[in-house]
């Protein structure tokens, strides 16, 4: 999974008042957790502890690991798993889904528009300059419409919760969102550990995801599939990729082939895989390699991970690539702050899901505000990632702020600023009992010509250290099973 910070500020829970998803202001258990708490209070903590250890050996045995780059070659790590589920009610979920669906529709319409007529630019709602020199925007896609007009077959929307009905979008993942295997395996693990819990509390299942994904991909078959049952394959960079487990898992669950660049070649105008019986054409390729590595003839010429000539086949209708090349422009940091305008422009409605308020320092008014409020804000580089080159106002010294101010004034267009948010907490299991920790949520969304499918739940990442906002798995972050209660 891509590593990152929730907002980049390690702060203590006492500094800010925040929304706890289990306990309300009066110390009462909220309805979402009522059934779970009743069950939990009847359990022996020592037994719970033992189950937790079992979960770890289960993960090791099944090989649910991620590889760590730069450490011992081939070393595999577990992402810590917390056995207290993160729970939302059916009602809360329904409202949230409507917002997610609205946003995902807008993203697809936005992508189509960017690569065709650019109405949004003509309407003055989006500055064309953001496309210039932006590597995520692919000129090769201009004027081309992917099969079924779908750009983002699979989307992960990263959300944080700030109140009872308030979820904010932290980030859209429109390229190759990962983590869905954890959503599925976490549920399997929970059901194996606490079967009786699931008879007590009715939870909407997530296990349909692989079938839904297979159906969704098949519905986007290219013209060359000619109405036959489409051949779907998952393209992985290989067994040393950090998300290889997930690639294999999804291919296995979908009944699709798991292919590498070395298995593929263009034969007679189709992208084919080398089978024991010869070259077989692939109709839909769910690729888990980045745009840049997809086709050495079009993009990075030294790439061994992709297929030479696949872009030509794609443009000629010989294959569907999911997600479509060039979708990355929609989740670019520079674009993020325009999402409210984008949603409104394409849906004609006010955005249901809020963005984290963002000041674009390129704009004079915003810059003035940001310069006035530096001690309260988080200022990020537009193209930066991993928390480098950013200012965390509340935890910085006067000297640090002054130094950063200079950089900001020199290149304001390179920065955006956001307030520090008070994020929700949910309970985790500790030796001392349940304890609140900050979380985010990544629901997984499938898009096909037949509609939008949102799996009830998603991946909850949790900052296991007290007060921390870092959900990054290499820095003490873990995952949880995410429940949407049945209606």
């Amino acid at each position: 999974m891509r590593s990152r910070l929730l907002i980049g500020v390690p702060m203590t829970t006492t500094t800010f008042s925040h929304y706890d998803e289990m306990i309300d202001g009066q110390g009462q258990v909220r309805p979402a957790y009522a059934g779970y708490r009743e069950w939990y209070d009847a359990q022996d903590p020592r037994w719970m502890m033992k189950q937790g250890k079992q979960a770890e050996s289960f993960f090791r045995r099944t090989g649910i690991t991620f590889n760590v780059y730069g450490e011992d070659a081939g070393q595999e790590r577990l992402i810590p798993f917390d056995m207290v589920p993160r729970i939302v009610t059916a009602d809360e979920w329904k409202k949230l889904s409507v917002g997610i669906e609205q946003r995902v529709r807008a993203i697809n319409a936005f992508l189509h528009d960017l690569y065709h007529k650019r109405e949004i630019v003509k309407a003055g709602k989006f500055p064309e300059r953001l496309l210039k020199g932006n590597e995520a925007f692919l000129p090769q896609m201009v004027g081309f419409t992917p099969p079924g007009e779908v750009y983002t077959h699979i989307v992960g929307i990263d959300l944080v919760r700030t109140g009872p009905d308030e979820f904010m979008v932290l980030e859209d993942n429109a390229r190759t969102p990962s983590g869905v295997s954890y959503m599925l395996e976490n549920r399997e693990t929970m059901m194996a550990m606490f079967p009786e819990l699931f008879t007590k509390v009715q939870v909407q299942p997530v296990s349909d995801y692989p079938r839904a994904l297979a159906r969704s991909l098949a519905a986007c078959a290219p013209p060359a599939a000619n109405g036959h049952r489409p051949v779907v394959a998952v393209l992985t960079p290989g067994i040393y990729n950090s998300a290889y487990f997930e690639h294999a898992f999804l291919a296995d669950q979908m009944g699709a082939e798991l292919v590498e660049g070395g298995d593929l070649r263009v034969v007679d105008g189709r992208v084919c895989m080398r089978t024991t019986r010869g070259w077989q054409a692939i109709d839909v390729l769910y690729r888990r390699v980045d745009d840049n590595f997809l086709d050495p003839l079009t993009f990075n010429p030294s790439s061994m991970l992709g297929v030479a000539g696949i872009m030509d086949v794609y443009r000629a209708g010989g294959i569907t690539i999911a997600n479509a090349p060039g979708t990355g422009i929609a989740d670019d940091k520079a674009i993020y702050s325009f999402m409210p305008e984008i949603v409104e422009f394409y849906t004609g409605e006010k955005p249901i899901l809020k963005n984290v308020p963002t000041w674009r320092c390129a704009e004079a008014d915003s810059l003035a505000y940001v310069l006035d409020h530096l001690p309260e804000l988080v200022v990020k580089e537009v193209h930066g990632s991993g928390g480098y080159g950013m200012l965390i106002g509340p935890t910085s010294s006067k000297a640090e702020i002054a130094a950063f101010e200079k950089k900001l004034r020199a290149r304001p267009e390179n920065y955006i600023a956001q307030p520090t948010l008070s994020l929700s907490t949910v309970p985790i299991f500790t030796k001392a009992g349940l304890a609140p920790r900050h979380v985010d949520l990544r629901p997984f969304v499938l898009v096909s010509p037949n509609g939008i499918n949102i799996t009830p739940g998603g991946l909850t990442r949790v900052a296991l250290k007290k007060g921390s906002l870092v959900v990054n798995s290499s820095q003490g972050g873990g995952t949880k099973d995410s429940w949407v209660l049945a209606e």
Partner: protein
Amino acid sequence: MLGRSAWGLFWMFRYLERAENTARMLDAGFRMALTRGLSAASDEWRSVLITLGLEDDFAATGLDFTGHIITNFVLRSPENADSVLAMMENARTNARMVRTAITREVWEATNESWMILKEVLARPVREADLGEALDTIRRQTMLVRGAMEGTMLRNDIYNFAYMGTHIERADNTARILDVKYHVLLPSLAWVGSRLDNAQWEMVLRSVSGERAFRWMNAGALDPKGIAEFLILDGRFPRSLAFCYDKLAGNMASLAYGYGEATPSHELLRQANARLQQTGIAQIFEFGLHEFITQFINTNRQIADAIAADYRFTE
């Protein structure tokens, strides 16, 4: 299925088979050391190294020629690219690569085997723990095979896995027999003579065949009889005849499923016919060493032909 998957499965099962057979050979050497003293054991260790093709590699390390050092070299030395540990790691890497072709049970058995053996072989194995370590290797590889038997669809995937198993096993049995004959019978004139029973029992023990042989040849233990048993007795699961009979079955099933036979089928048919039509007397007339050398070469050719016919690589 992908050619690369067929390749991965074929070799995954070759690695597992080789790891298991290596454990058997070490077990025979270990027993020899316990029952027959140092010099007999030293012959046994030498034959283990020759059989595994590790004689030069071991000599290059400059290590002392003792049972403890040799077993650890064969089992786990980082200087030995063909150690049992490396073999298990290769098998597991291949299993990860073909994860979508195997059932969860087969994958977990393989993954768990690797985790357990990595632990067992994390430090040099003391003599007191060697028996248990060797047992663990055999037990774990059998678990993988059991998971295969119990959960895998009988299709091309299954056939490629077992083709790897039987090619490797035939090769291993042939090598054991060849080397033992060289070590135990310095001259052909010795064939037919009654030798030290314990030595011959080691040959059988290396292929877990002592009980079966005793059962069918009550009391008798002669070189010719043992050679016949290991080469021609189709009832014994590690004999050349058995391996080729099974290999032919797997390949016939593959040809049936694919609707066509390939050049490797013809190669196997010829080799199998030779095996079936040759008696033990003819083999000795021709020369056992020559016969086995030819067998091992043909076996390799068949493996190469399978790889080419089924597009293991580009």
